[in-house]
């Protein structure tokens, strides 16, 4: 809902006519990733908080291996994020009249960025679940952790829009590497977070 509301607000207030054509690829990439990241932050942060608030956290701790819990939450978050991207990205392209020269590169960037975003938000969600000031803490922790991914994804989407094809899609490779590092590190660190 947050994503749809933001998308409609952005498309009505900015539209495709108020931005100079030369600035569009960059600004649209920024706007798209702002919508995706903040939607992810508002929704995915709840994945562990729900267990804590529902009182099911301890039963889950006693029943399941920490890694299984993390992977379960990660797959849930990735599915949610995938569904969000499936709705938001085409809607954004249509509503903003976003002209993309390299659609395959653009799709790979959105998918790999989404996986990195899912990995990052899942481990942050686990960290904040037992804290009292969850909202503030989530923003504080997310910003430095997700910034490199956001910059890369924006750059990649901009390149895809203008048709500046770099051999080997370096931005996609960075995003994939980010996702792998984030998920592997999370699997190693999660048992420590999961315990008291």
């Amino acid at each position, binding site marked *: 809902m947050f994503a749809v509301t933001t998308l409609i607000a952005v498309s009505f207030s900015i539209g495709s006519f108020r931005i100079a054509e030369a600035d569009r690829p960059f600004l649209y990439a920024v706007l798209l990733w702002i919508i995706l990241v903040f939607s992810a932050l508002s929704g995915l942060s709840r994945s562990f908080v729900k267990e804590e608030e*529902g*009182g*099911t956290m*301890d*039963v*889950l*701790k*006693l*029943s*399941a291996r920490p890694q*299984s819990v993390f992977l379960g939450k990660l797959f849930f978050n990735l599915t949610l994020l995938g569904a969000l991207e499936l709705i938001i990205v085409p809607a954004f392209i249509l509503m903003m009249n976003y002209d993309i020269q390299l659609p395959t590169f653009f799709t790979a960037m959105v998918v790999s960025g989404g996986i990195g975003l899912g990995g990052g938000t899942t481990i942050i969600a686990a960290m904040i679940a037992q804290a009292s000031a969850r909202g503030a803490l989530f923003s504080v922790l997310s910003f430095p952790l997700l910034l490199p991914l956001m910059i890369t994804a924006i750059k990649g989407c901009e390149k895809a829009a203008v048709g500046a094809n770099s051999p080997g899609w370096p931005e996609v490779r960075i995003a994939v590497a980010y996702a792998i590092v984030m998920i592997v590190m999370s699997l190693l660190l999660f*048992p420590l977070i999961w*315990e*008291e």
Partner: protein
Amino acid sequence: MYSLEVINLSKHYTETLLFKDISFEMHPGEVMAITGWNGSGKSTLLRIIAGLVRPSSGKVEMSIQGESIPKELRRRFVGMVAPAFSLYEELTALENLEFFCKVRGIAHNRESSLQMMERVGLAENAHKFCRNYSSGMKQRLKLAQALIHNPPLLLLDEPGCNLDSKGMKVVESIISKQRQWGMTVIASNEKREVDYGDRVINLSE
């Protein structure tokens, strides 16, 4: 042959000391009752034994045939019920049991889950959503969840919480069955529940 050893266990939060140097040993067939004033650390002691909370000092050792069980594997051998625990309200009671079986990696069919529901007196309400359960029914379901993997160590924090006399009979039968082969630790101030214990530790002393 399982055994549980609690060695010089102490717990304090910042400046509040809950308990100090608690030690005991348990073997199959034994029931231990833990009592003490509110805030004396009964629930915390059970949570430490389960591996949910780290002690400030001391350790908990659980062994099988004299071989120590690593802490990260202890959950497989522990079943716990506590007032603070909840199950998934959006699932039916049976789905809850089946979910925890899957999560624990136990091969379990619907029939054995229904037998467990029968054991805690919930067979007729097995397909009801947990959100529609009364607090007593939820307590019975928590007991079923704790027993689903046949744990050699059963930790019961106020097991009679919200239960009527029929529910208390269920608790009684669970404890007497567990006494045949496993260990049970009960944390309570209710005389009836404390009386199940062969030994009593009072944390207020």
